[in-house]
């Protein structure tokens, strides 16, 4: 068994809720509430959840763009949050993040070449004269061998821009890519191409991925393991086959039934999961899902269920699973 490349323990991020002119703190939004997992080297972890469940905050914490309020982040068994500047710099080279919107991910004032070369300059990876060749190689790797690198990104389509963004991320020779909704703003035909590109690049560069999406179909196409987030917590996690075929948590089952996976013609009119996400400021007491859960029983659901291993490697937080 290979070693985990990244491991999170008890990561928490609460955003204070302020009221009135004196900015009194009256509560907190628990964007990420005690999340822990690890990703094996060369594997892909998919994190799925509705909008507002804390996925993007979690991605920013892992990329060290937002400091967590509590918890530890280990990269190859080194704690990154301990404040060692040299280690953080290494981490910033080895871990890259790709955002949802390829239009705002590229500096409009930089030529394609300069955007892709920037990581090489920051980390002084190559002698200056080798950089143009490296940039060309990267463009070929992401399927843009025919694009003139001395142009500005404004002339490119969304899919081409996202390929540039991927090339820039690869320029630092990373080991782990954080993909935060990487195809959500692309049209469907382009989505498939970019997802295939991720699969090819994973083999070519021996990458590990953390893929974040609201769309289980996209998650399932790329992941080895899937974690399901609901209101800042992981409520189910396990190998892809288990999550897709034998989900244990009623929320996961609801996501799978929500029309995306059902065959044409059998698509439900009624939503699989009823109601809206409850207020993040006043969380439901006990199990956070009980307000929408078809199997909620009281008083059992008045206490929060812990994430427990129900099958080999398959964890779930539900009293009735």
């Amino acid at each position, binding site marked *: 068994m290979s070693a985990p490349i990244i491991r999170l323990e008890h990561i928490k991020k609460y955003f204070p809720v302020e009221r009135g002119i004196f900015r009194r703190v009256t509560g907190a939004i628990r964007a990420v509430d005690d999340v822990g997992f690890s990703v094996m080297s060369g594997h892909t972890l998919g994190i799925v959840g509705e909008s507002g469940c804390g996925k993007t905050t979690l991605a920013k914490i892992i990329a060290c763009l937002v400091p967590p309020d509590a918890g530890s982040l280990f990269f190859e068994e080194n704690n990154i949050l301990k404040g060692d500047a040299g280690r953080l710099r290494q981490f*910033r*080279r080895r871990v*890259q993040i790709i*955002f949802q919107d390829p239009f*705002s*991910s590229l*500096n*409009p*004032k930089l030529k394609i070449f300069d955007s892709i070369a920037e990581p090489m300059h*920051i980390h002084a990876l190559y002698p200056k004269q080798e950089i143009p060749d490296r940039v060309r190689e990267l463009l070929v790797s992401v399927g843009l061998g025919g694009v003139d690198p001395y142009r500005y990104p404004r002339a490119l389509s969304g899919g081409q821009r996202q390929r540039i963004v991927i090339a820039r991320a690869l320029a630092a020779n990373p080991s782990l890519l954080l993909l935060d909704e990487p195809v959500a703003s692309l049209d469907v035909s382009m989505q498939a191409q970019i997802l295939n590109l991720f699969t090819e690049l994973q083999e070519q560069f021996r990458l590990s991925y953390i893929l974040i999406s609201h769309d289980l179909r996209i998650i399932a196409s790329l992941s080895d393991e899937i974690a399901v987030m609901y209101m800042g917590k992981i409520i189910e996690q396990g190998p892809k086959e288990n999550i897709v075929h034998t989900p244990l948590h009623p929320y996961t089952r609801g996501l799978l039934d929500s029309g995306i996976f059902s065959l044409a013609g059998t698509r439900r009119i009624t939503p699989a999961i009823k109601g809206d996400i409850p207020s993040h400021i006043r969380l439901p007491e006990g199990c956070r899902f009980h307000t929408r859960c078809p199997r909620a029983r009281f008083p059992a659901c008045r206490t929060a269920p812990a994430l427990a291993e129900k099958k080999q490697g398959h964890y779930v937080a539900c009293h009735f699973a």
Partner: protein
Amino acid sequence: MRFLHNRMFVSGALIVGTLAVTALAAPLIAPHDPNAIHMNDALLGPSREYILGTDQLGRDLLSRIIFGTRISLSIGFIAVGISVIIGGVLGAVAGYYGGRIDGLIMRFVDAMFCFPTIFLMLAIIAILEPNIFTIMVVIGLTSWMGMARLIRAEVLSLKEREFVQAARALGAGDLRIIFRHIVPNAINPVLVNATLGVGGAILVEAGLSFLGLGVQPPTPSWGNILIEAKVTLGSAWWITLFPGLLILITVLGYNLLGEGLRDVLSE
């Protein structure tokens, strides 16, 4: 070129360009020495010898206006330069670092905005000697607040943009992020506002000179030509009309150029 298709930009650029050339080549263009006194020719109307007429000391009005262009333009440019530098640095620091620094700087901006600017300028000039240099500095020091707010707002929105976040995740330092990713993208609105600001600064200078607190005679500036003409307003209309017209055209030119720039750059 998309710049050439914008009428406002082109007409503004023509006016501003002509003025700039006039200012630079003043000694070559001016038909007379602007300070040479010809008492026999005092208060002559426009004629072939004195195209725009003469003032009460018989000095050639056209030559004085041409040399006045230098004063007005250099005050406009340098005053705006000072306000861009102060406003730029303070606004960028406030926007980029945020938190307490931001609060402190922006409250200072609010306080500066509360001062009646004209009285502040009068007070400073009353203490210091009124000359071109003082005027530039005083106008610059009292007009940077709008620029600071503008730049802060730009930086605030840019630093949350994904390409800036991506650069930070790449390990880029603050200086690289500010100068490579934020400044080049914040420059357009600053350019537009600075252009509009030059017109404003020229007006303020004319106003101060008119009050006798600006550029001191005999150095010709559009404002002090106007005040000297005040006495003879009833008999010698040309001495007030031409400098006034030129102030109007100049400010109009900068405003057209600024508006044109805004249109072209925001396409």
